[in-house]
C-alpha cells in the first residue's frame, strides 16, 4: 500500500503531473504579469483570462511536424529533449511542497544533488546544441556553457550558506530549521539576491537570455528542434522555472510553512508565485547582457557577494 | 552676381584650368547649389581627383542613364550641400570606365549597382559581383537599358528559371 502511495506521489501529486500543470500555470502567471507591466493584455482568449494558453501552445507544438535535419547526431538529438525534461523533474522531487520536511524523496545531502542537476541541465543544453550541428545552435550551446561558468559557483555558494547555518545539507532540514527560527531571506538577504540573479541565468531569462537570444542567434541552442521535441524543451523550461521558484521558496522563504490557519500547500503556492512575479518584474527592466559582460560581472560582483554572505554567517552569531 | 553664384563659377573655372577646358564639354549652373557638368571619359579620373581635393569627398550616388546608343553615367558629388553632377558618356557596345573607388571609397556599392543594372564595367573595381540582381539572372540582360522592355525582361527571366 505504502509503495503505491509513494508511486502516486511521484507520478501525480506532488510529483510529475502536478509539476507539469503548475509549470503551465506559472508560465501563464509570468506571461500575464510581464504583459501587464508592459501595458499589454498578455494571453487572453484561451480559457479564463488566457489561463490555458501555455497548455494550448504545448498541444499545438505536439501536433506540429517534427523535422530532423540530416546532419544532426540522431541519437543525442532525440534523447536530449527527454533528458532536459527529466532533470528538473527529478530535482523538484527533493523540494518540499505539501508540508514542511515532506519532500517526495529526501536524503541528507540532497542539496548537493540538486546543484549537480542544475549543472547537468546546462551541460545537457550544450549537448543538445552540439548534436544539432547548426551554427546558431553551436553558438547558443557554447554560450550556455560559458554562462554556466559565470553563475554556477556563486549559485552553489549561496545555496550552501543556509546549509551552514542550519547544519544540514538536505532541503527538508533547511526548511525545518527556518520553520523553527527565521526564514533565511531575513538572515541572508545578500544570498537571496544572488540566488535570484543566478536562477535568472539558469532559466535563461532577460537579462541573461544569452544562449537563446533571438535577435542574435535565432533561437540559440533550440534552433533545430521542432514539433514534439520543442514541446518537451518548452515544457522543461516551465518545470525548471517551478524548480527554481520552489527551491528559492524552500531555502530562503521557509518553504511551505507559515501561520497555522493557512494550509502549508497554500503557503508554498503563495511564496512560489511571489518568486515568479519577482522574476517577471526583473525581466521587464533590463537589456540583455553580452556573454563576456555576464561572466565578467558575475565573477566581479556575484562571487564576492556570495563569499561575503558566507563570511557574514561565520562572523555573526 | 551673388557670392554663391561666384563660388559656383569659380569651381567650374578651377576644374577647367586643371583638366583642360577642352575636356569639359558642357557646364550648366541650374540654380544655387546645383551644378551639372559633362566631361570626357579620359578626363573623368582627373576631374574627380581634382574635385575630391576641392572638398567634394561625399558621393551621393552614381546614376546611369540609357541614352539610346550610348550610356550616360552621372557622378553626383557633394560638398556641404553643393551638389555637383559630373556626367560622362560611354558607347553602349563598349561601356568601360575607370573606377573612382580609390579616390572615394564610398562609391563601391554605387558602381556595382550601375554595373548590375546597365552593364557599365568599372575597371579596377575591387569586386564587381552582383549587388541587386539574383544569381540566376541571365548574363547580358541589363534591366535599365531601354531596349529591354518590361515584357522582354519577364520573358527572358522566365526562360532561365
Amino acid at each position, binding site marked *: 500500500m505504502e509503495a503505491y502511495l509513494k508511486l502516486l506521489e511521484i507520478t501525480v501529486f506532488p510529483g510529475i503531473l502536478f509539476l507539469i500543470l503548475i509549470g503551465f500555470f506559472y508560465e501563464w502567471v509570468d506571461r500575464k504579469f510581464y504583459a501587464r*507591466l*508592459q*501595458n499589454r493584455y498578455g494571453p487572453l482568449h484561451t480559457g479564463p483570462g488566457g489561463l490555458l494558453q501555455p497548455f494550448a501552445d504545448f498541444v499545438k507544438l505536439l501536433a506540429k511536424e517534427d523535422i530532423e535535419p*540530416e546532419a544532426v547526431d540522431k541519437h543525442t538529438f532525440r534523447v536530449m529533449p527527454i533528458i532536459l525534461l527529466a532533470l528538473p523533474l527529478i530535482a523538484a522531487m527533493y523540494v518540499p511542497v505539501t508540508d514542511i520536511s515532506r519532500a517526495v524523496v529526501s536524503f541528507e545531502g540532497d542539496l548537493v544533488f540538486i546543484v549537480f542537476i542544475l549543472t547537468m541541465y546546462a551541460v545537457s543544453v550544450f549537448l543538445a546544441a552540439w548534436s544539432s550541428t547548426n*551554427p*546558431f545552435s*553551436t*553558438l547558443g550551446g*557554447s554560450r550556455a556553457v560559458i554562462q554556466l561558468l559565470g553563475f554556477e559557483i556563486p549559485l552553489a555558494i549561496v545555496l550552501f550558506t543556509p546549509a551552514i547555518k542550519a547544519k544540514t545539507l538536505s532541503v527538508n532540514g533547511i526548511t525545518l530549521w527556518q520553520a523553527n527560527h527565521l526564514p533565511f531571506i531575513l538572515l541572508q538577504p545578500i544570498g537571496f539576491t544572488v540566488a535570484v540573479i543566478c536562477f535568472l541565468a539558469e532559466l535563461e531569462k*532577460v537579462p541573461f*537570455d*544569452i544562449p537563446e*537570444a*533571438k*535577435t*542574435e*542567434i535565432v533561437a540559440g541552442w533550440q534552433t533545430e528542434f521542432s514539433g514534439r521535441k520543442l514541446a518537451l524543451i518548452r515544457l522543461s523550461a516551465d518545470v525548471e522555472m517551478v524548480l527554481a521558484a520552489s527551491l528559492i521558496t524552500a531555502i530562503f522563504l521557509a518553504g511551505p510553512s507559515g501561520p497555522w490557519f493557512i494550509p502549508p500547500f497554500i503557503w508554498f503556492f503563495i511564496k512560489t508565485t511571489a518568486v515568479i512575479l519577482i522574476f517577471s518584474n526583473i525581466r*521587464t*527592466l*533590463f*537589456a*540583455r*547582457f*553580452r*556573454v563576456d559582460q555576464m561572466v565578467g560581472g558575475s565573477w566581479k560582483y556575484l562571487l564576492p557577494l556570495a563569499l561575503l554572505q558566507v563570511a557574514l554567517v561565520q562572523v555573526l552569531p | 552676381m551673388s557670392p554663391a553664384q561666384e563660388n559656383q563659377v569659380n569651381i567650374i573655372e578651377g576644374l577647367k584650368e586643371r583638366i583642360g577646358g577642352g575636356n569639359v564639354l558642357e557646364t550648366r549652373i*541650374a*540654380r544655387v*547649389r*546645383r551644378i551639372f557638368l559633362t566631361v570626357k571619359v579620359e578626363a573623368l579620373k582627373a576631374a574627380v581627383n581634382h574635385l575630391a581635393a576641392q572638398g567634394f*569627398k*561625399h558621393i*551621393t*550616388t552614381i*546614376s546611369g*542613364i*540609357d541614352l539610346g546608343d550610348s550610356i550616360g553615367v552621372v557622378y*553626383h558629388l557633394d560638398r*556641404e*550641400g553643393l*551638389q555637383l*553632377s559630373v556626367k560622362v558618356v560611354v558607347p553602349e557596345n563598349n561601356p568601360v570606365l575607370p573606377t573612382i573607388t580609390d579616390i572615394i*571609397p*564610398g*562609391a*563601391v*556599392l*554605387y558602381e556595382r*549597382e550601375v554595373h548590375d*543594372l546597365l552593364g557599365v564595367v568599372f575597371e579596377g573595381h575591387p569586386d564587381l559581383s*552582383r*549587388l*541587386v*540582381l539574383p544569381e540566376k539572372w541571365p548574363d547580358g540582360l541589363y*534591366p*535599365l537599358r531601354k531596349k529591354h522592355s*518590361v515584357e522582354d*525582361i*519577364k520573358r527572358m*527571366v*522566365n526562360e532561365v528559371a
Partner: protein
Amino acid sequence: MKLPESETTFQIPIGPQHPALAESENFTFTVDGETVVDVKARLGYVHRGIEKALENGTYIQNLYLIERICGICSHAHTLCYSQNIDEALGIEAPPRARFIRTIVAELGRVHSHYLWLGLAGHEIGFDTLFMYTWRDREVVMDLQELITGNRVNFALFTIGGVRRDITPYAIEQVRKGVKTLEERIQYYKKMCAKEVTLLKRTVGVGVLKPSQAINLCAVGPLLRASGVKRDIRKDDPHAAYDEVPFNVITYDGCDVASRLFVRVDEVVESLNIIRYALEHLPDGPIRVKVPRRVPTHETISRVEAPRGELFHYVKSNGTDKPERYKVRTPTLANIPSVCEMLKGGYVADIPITLASIDPCFCCTDRVAIVDAVKGKKRVWTWEQLSRYSEKWHGRR
C-alpha cells in the same frame, strides 16, 4: 581584406530570414568564437523594379508608386519626388503647402525615430522599451492619420503642393500630441542615460570614426553621431526648412549610444519644428495647377529622410512619363559603413550595430525588374503546395 581560413572560424549567415532583420537581406559573417572577422553583404532580396516601373508610369501615377518604396519613410520619398518634379516644371509650391510638407515630414521623422528606439531596445533584449515606445508611437500615427487620411501611405504631397489642407481641429490635436510626445521622449532620454544594461550594450559598440564616416560617405544620424555636422535640411534647404529655426544634433561618441541620443534629441528638435511651423503657418492656397507634361530637364532633389540623405534624380523628356528616375536611399549609402563597423565586434553586437543605421532594405532594393506575377497566377493551392513539399521531401 581576405583573411586566412583557419580551423577556428566558421560562417554564420544572418538573413535572408533572421529575427534580427525585419526585412530580408543577407549578411554572411565569418566568426571566430564570438568575434566577427569578416562581413559580406548581399542585397537584392526585395527587388521590385521600381525604377524601371517609374519609366512606364505617368508623373501622377508615380506619386503613389514612389510612396511605396518604403513604408516608414514614405513621406520622405513623396516629398522628394514632388519637389523634384516641381523644380523640373519650374514652379514652386505655395508657402502654406511648404509648411504643411514640413509638418508632415517632421511628424514622419518623430514616428520613425520612435520606431527605431523601440527596435533598438528589442535588438538588445530590452522588450519593455520596445513595447512602450511603440505604444507612444501610436500618438504620432493617429496624428498622421488625422492630417492625411492614412497611417502609413499618406498620399498627401503632390506635384505643386499638397492635396489636403490641415484643419483647425487637426492643428489642435497636433499641439496636444506634440506635448505628450515631448514628455515621453524626455522620459526615454533620462531613462536611457541611466539604464546600466542598455549603456553596457551600446557604449563603445559599432564604432565609426569621423574620418571613416566621411570616406565611406555615410549619411544621416550615423554621420551626425560621428560628430560630423551634416544635415540636408540645413545644407540644402527644402520645404520650409529655410524659414524654420532648428539645430543640427551631433554627438561625438561615434558608437551606438551616440546614434541613440542623436535620434532622441532629433525627436525633440522635430517637435519644436512642428510647433513653430504650426504657429507660423501662412494662409493662402495649398497647391498650384500643374501641367501633365514635363519639359526636357534634368533635376536633382534631396531630402533629409529620417535615415539620412535621400536623393532623387529625374531626367524628363517632354512627355508625361520620366525618361529616367533614379532613387538613392540612405540605407544603401550606409551599408559600407556598417560592414566596417561590424568587423572586430562581437556576434552579440551584430543586431544592435546593424540596427544602429536604422536599415530599411525595402528602400535599398528597388531597382531591377517589375514583378513577373501580374497577368499570371502564381498563387498555389493547398494541394499544389503539399504535392510540392512531398516531392521535395521525397528527393532528400
